[in-house]
């Protein structure tokens, strides 16, 4: 217990940095959760349309204009070509419909008259185009069914007023889970930075050559000392992970207690094990306390940027992602994304997640092997 108690005392003197990494995590996570726009609430968009009607008073033309007014925002602009072009250029309108003379009558007579169109070509212009095409496609169909204008308008009305109901069958709470995923992606940095800094610092303190000599000449078995130090480092990493799990439950809520949330927690635990072994390796390679901050920045910040902890992986260039494959963080963050999109928990869906977890454990195993080789060489 002597080593563990002293470990806690030294940790207490360095608690500021652990708190700092946690505050960074909470700050960024809270900020992103607040500004998260990954929801699934759909709101119909209305394009801005200008209608230039040169047709005389005609029922079907009027009906068409009413339909457009109902489903878009109809703008009024000075009736000159220059004003129309300016309105399009400055995106005051997305779509201009020129209704030529006799358009209504020509349509009813089956002449297939054409509307003149000017468009910004953006997605709102496409929406306007869909509206126009929809109306005249329906009108075309019913024109062949009836010759009476009044009945034609009724039929068009009945058809166009039918709304399509979109039912989301997925039971995923996408919004909450997106927050949880974001939190755990950010935790990549905090877990790595916390583990690497503290564990390296502790190893360099306890294994400092002169202090180590005192331990070597003491009556404490060196293996026992190493076991106590390893256990202390393990407990620290576990406590750090537990602290972040509790924080995630506080910040994100009950979604963390769903099966997918528990998979996120399990994934972060395995990643913490991997981070612990990486920290043990670095701690045995580097004993310079002054270099610790630099190493933390290179390891934690570097892998967080490369593997998509801060920037979603879909925005990262391919070559960056290829490099990221050699880092444990890549598999951890990739797994977070897989868990986020996990709808049915079955073997088929879980297989890639378990493979990534296996990769994390493989990294941990490799780090342990290298640490053993390094330690044995040092002790010769």
């Amino acid at each position, binding site marked *: 217990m*002597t080593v563990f*108690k*002293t470990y806690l*005392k*030294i940790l207490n*003197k*360095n608690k500021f940095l652990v708190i700092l990494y946690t505050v960074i995590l909470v700050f960024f996570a809270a900020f992103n959760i607040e500004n998260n726009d990954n929801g699934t609430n759909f709101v119909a968009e209305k394009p801005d349309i200008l209608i230039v009607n040169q047709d005389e008073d005609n029922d079907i033309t009027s009906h068409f204009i009413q339909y457009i007014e109902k489903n878009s925002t109809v703008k009024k602009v000075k009736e000159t070509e220059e004003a129309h072009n300016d309105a399009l250029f400055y995106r005051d309108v997305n779509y201009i419909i020129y209704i030529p003379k006799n358009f209504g009558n020509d349509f009813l007579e089956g002449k297939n008259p054409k509307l003149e169109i000017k468009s910004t070509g953006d997605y709102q212009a496409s929406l306007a185009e869909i509206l126009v095409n929809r109306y005249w496609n329906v009108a075309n169909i019913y024109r062949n069914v009836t010759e009476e204008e009044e009945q034609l308008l009724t039929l068009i009305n009945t058809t166009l007023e039918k709304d399509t109901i979109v039912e989301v069958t997925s039971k995923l709470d996408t919004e909450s889970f997106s927050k949880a995923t974001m939190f755990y992606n950010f935790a990549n940095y905090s877990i790595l930075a916390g583990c690497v800094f503290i564990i390296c610092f502790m190893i360099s*303190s306890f294994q*400092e050559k*002169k*202090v180590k*000599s*005192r*331990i*070597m*000449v*003491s*009556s*404490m*078995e*060196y293996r026992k*000392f190493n076991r106590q130090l390893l256990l202390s480092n393990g407990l620290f990493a576990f406590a750090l992970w537990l602290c972040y799990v509790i924080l995630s439950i506080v910040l994100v809520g009950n979604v963390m207690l769903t099966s997918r949330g528990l998979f996120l927690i399990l994934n972060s635990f395995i990643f913490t094990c991997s981070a612990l072994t990486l920290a043990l390796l670095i701690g045995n390679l580097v004993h310079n306390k002054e270099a610790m901050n630099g190493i933390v920045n290179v390891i934690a910040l570097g892998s967080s940027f490369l593997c998509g902890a801060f920037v979603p992986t879909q925005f990262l260039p391919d070559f960056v992602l290829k490099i990221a494959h050699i880092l444990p963080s890549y598999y951890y963050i990739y797994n977070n994304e897989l868990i986020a999109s996990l709808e049915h928990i079955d073997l088929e869906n879980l297989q890639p997640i378990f493979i990534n977890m296996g990769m994390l454990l493989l990294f941990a195993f490799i780090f342990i092997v290298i640490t053993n080789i390094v330690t044995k060489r040092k002790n010769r």
Partner: protein
Amino acid sequence: MKNIIEVKNLTKEYKNLKAIDDLSFEVHEGEILGLLGPNGSGKSTTINCILSLLKFEKGTIQIFGRPMAPNAYDTKREIGVVFQDVAVFEELTVEENIDYFCGLYVNDKSLRKQYVTDAIELVGLNEFKKFYPKQLSGGLLRRLNIACGIAHKPKLIFLDEPTVAVDPQSRNNILDGIEQLREKGATIIYTTHYMEEVEILCDRVIILDKGKVIASGSPEELKELANMEEKVSVEIETITEKQLEEIKKLKNVDEVHYHNQNLIVIYKKGKNNLITLIDYLGKERVLYDKIYSERPTLNDVFLELTGKELRD
């Protein structure tokens, strides 16, 4: 007298260099043994071999009658080591540091608390027990270093140059502390460059050079090995070459030097040497100021035995 340490035919090699060459010696219970020698003479290597910090090619080492080995934890329990370099945790206070290193030997919490208090008392760090190492002067750090090494009240203590770069007050404090440890029954092995410390503290001295014992005995016995009785220094403003030649012919005179108005006369053996010299100077009407007479030091012994100074 009971032997606490027995080193027999110890040989340690670094590639082609023999750091220790067939070294044998004993350390008796309750004594302070001084290990003297210049840098590279093998003092620290010898201690590291005894403590099993270094492997060696040949020889045997027994401590308390038991063979010493890296896993001889019962033996190690009775040993305290004060290394030359200060080895403490920067993040712990004086008291916490001593408690940690004492805790490597003593599990009982209340006993350890008492031991820590005693160690702080012994090295005079009572006022500084809540200080961190970086707040301490070099001398106070050395005292802390000693306290960390001896807090568990060992029977055998290794002190490797504990007074290097220490102010006079701390040095006196450290030397007093070592005396107290001896009074309490500890056996001490003391390595140093400072002959005066050896002369004050040590019951026996082993002089090492190139990994070999070149002389051993009590400080007085070693001084007997020096081929001189005394060295007389006289401050003289002027003296002629003829007078210097005549002084050289006085009884028992071995060497005469005159440098910077300082006449140095070295006598081989004999008595009443100083009176003879004063008589001669008076007869020749040579004006002199101060006269000093010195007995040979261990450095003189070392110089005679090896042809070089201890601090070379």
